[in-house]
């Protein structure tokens, strides 16, 4: 599902060159749930951004769902992100001025051929999957952290992506809420065969995944 071959990422400014990733080779099978661990600055988020096509690698090859990424054009990347990938962030990134259901509809706004009724139907289904059907017209500020992260998950899965990328999804939650979110991710992986790549600092949550990829100083150590 995800293939990375010799991926490198170097950030260059006029004075400094920072190597964020060196020779990353990673193969994630369809329906696999893996976690990426490592200390701060080890390149976890950079790796997730490269997989999520939010960042362009300096070298190496990336393929998603058997589609090699050869042209990093804005339009192509946007379409890939919209159709193949779902993102979950540590700080949820919900738009506070939109209701829960309007937040969940966002990815569908960028998809062609969907009527507003279709968008609404799909958003409500996604919210039902994460158990938030009773909070549809609430605003993010009226929800707990766990509920907000569930909204973010609903938003990530509303477009039925094959890959879910989660950047420390439990990082801002207490352990009980963190466990609830992990259960939601596990059920999505188990019941819908969604491939999940999760960056985490929490070994307890990482152990719940099928495989742990460890990074240190931009290198893959296991």
């Amino acid at each position, binding site marked *: 599902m995800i293939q990375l071959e010799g991926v490198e990422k170097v950030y260059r400014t006029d004075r400094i060159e920072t190597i964020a990733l060196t020779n990353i080779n990673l193969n994630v099978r369809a329906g696999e749930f893996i976690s990426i661990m490592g200390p701060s600055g080890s390149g976890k*988020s950079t790796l997730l*951004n490269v997989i*999520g096509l*939010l*960042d362009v690698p300096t070298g190496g090859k990336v393929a998603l769902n058997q589609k090699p990424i050869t042209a990093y054009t*804005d*339009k192509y990347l*946007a*379409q890939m*992100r*919209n*159709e193949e990938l779902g*993102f979950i*962030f540590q700080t949820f*990134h919900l*738009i506070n*001025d*939109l209701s829960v259901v*309007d937040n969940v*509809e*966002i*990815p569908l*706004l*960028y*998809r062609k051929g969907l009527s*507003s009724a279709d968008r609404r139907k799909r958003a409500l289904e996604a919210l039902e999957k994460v158990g938030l059907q009773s909070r549809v017209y609430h605003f993010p500020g009226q929800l707990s952290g766990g509920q907000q992260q569930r909204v973010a998950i609903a*938003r990530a899965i509303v*477009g039925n992506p094959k890959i879910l990328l989660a950047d420390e999804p439990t990082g801002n939650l207490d352990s009980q809420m963190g466990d609830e979110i992990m259960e939601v991710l596990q059920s999505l992986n188990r019941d819908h065969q969604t491939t999940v790549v999760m960056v985490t600092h929490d070994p307890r949550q990482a152990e719940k995944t099928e495989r742990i990829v460890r990074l240190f100083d931009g290198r893959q150590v296991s």
Partner: protein
Amino acid sequence: MFRHLCKLVWNRKRVNFLITLEIFISFLVVFGVIVFAVYYLDNYRHPLGFNYENVWAVQVGIEKKSDDSDRQRLLDTTKQMLATLKDFGEIEHVAAVWGAPYSRGNWQSGNTIKGRNVRFWGNFMTDEAKDVFGINIVRGRWFGKEDDGANYNPIILNQKTARDIFGDEDPLGKNPEERFDPDPDGPSPSANREPKKPERVIGIIDDFRKNGEFAELFGYQIFRNTLTMPDGREPRAFVMKVRPGTTAEFEEKLVKRMQAIAKDWSFEVKTIAQMRSENHTSYYVPIAAFGLVAGFLMLMVALGLTGVLWQSVTQRTKEIGLRRAKGATATRIYKQILGELLVITTFGLLIGVLVVIQFPLLDFLGFATKQVYLYSMLLSLALIYLLTIACGLYPSRLATKVQPAEALHYE
């Protein structure tokens, strides 16, 4: 997407309120200036009704007695003056008029017809005025010898007055006074003292827009000045069509001769073209002043809007990053920021239009016709939309530069 934009703008109404208010006020100010400009332009495109090329006006200052006892003497002097002026080789035609084109002062009259107000400006002219000004007769005729000793007072109307008084009827040969509502106070004392001859419409002219191209389209009546008692009037100006190529040196010769005939009169010579230019300046100056104020206001609005949008884009960096991560292209982000601005602008303009369409109902800016109102409104809307789009271009472009990976971690 449009619904999404409207929802977003509406849910951020507190933040957007000030921008909406700014746009609303700008629209009102711009409309105020544009309605005057369009009104003047609309007036300008209508026919002037006379030709001012090679026409000179000598405005006269006459000291006359308050009891009118010297009127015969003044009329005689005027006749002598006209006869003398005709002898100049430089002058093709000359006439005496109550008000020269573009001169200050108007003689306004009017009445009601079935309760409807009919107002018009009037002028007294001697017979040769038609040739001096090249006045175009649409129907009927100009004053002539056939009116000498007639049992009526001949009058000439412009088309507007003819329409206002007689509607679709043929006004020729008719007396306008018969159409007016009776005076509730009864006949005036002067009417009892001096029974006057009935009026008769003998001709219709295109127009005679004495106050110039920019002035209101108004009714006009021209009365014949025979320079004889009891109806003759001393003129306030002599107007003359001079031969092409007549130089300013003629002015001195002219005034000298006129002064010789009437030592106690004062004379001021100007070409009508010169008076026209002065008249136009009196319109340009206030419009330019208001335009300048409106321009500064627009500049302030433009700077304010650009600043607010710029700040808004910066504050929404994370949101923009999120939208990029969820599949929005840079172009979609660009369109979204501009789209939101257009929705906010539309809100402000809708309120503005609602206010502005009350003006005709309240008879505020009542001089403007429906057409002028409509054009002014459309022009103002277009101008404000153009301004806001121009202000939104740079911040929107800035939003497209946001890199999703960086934006999502932006603090």
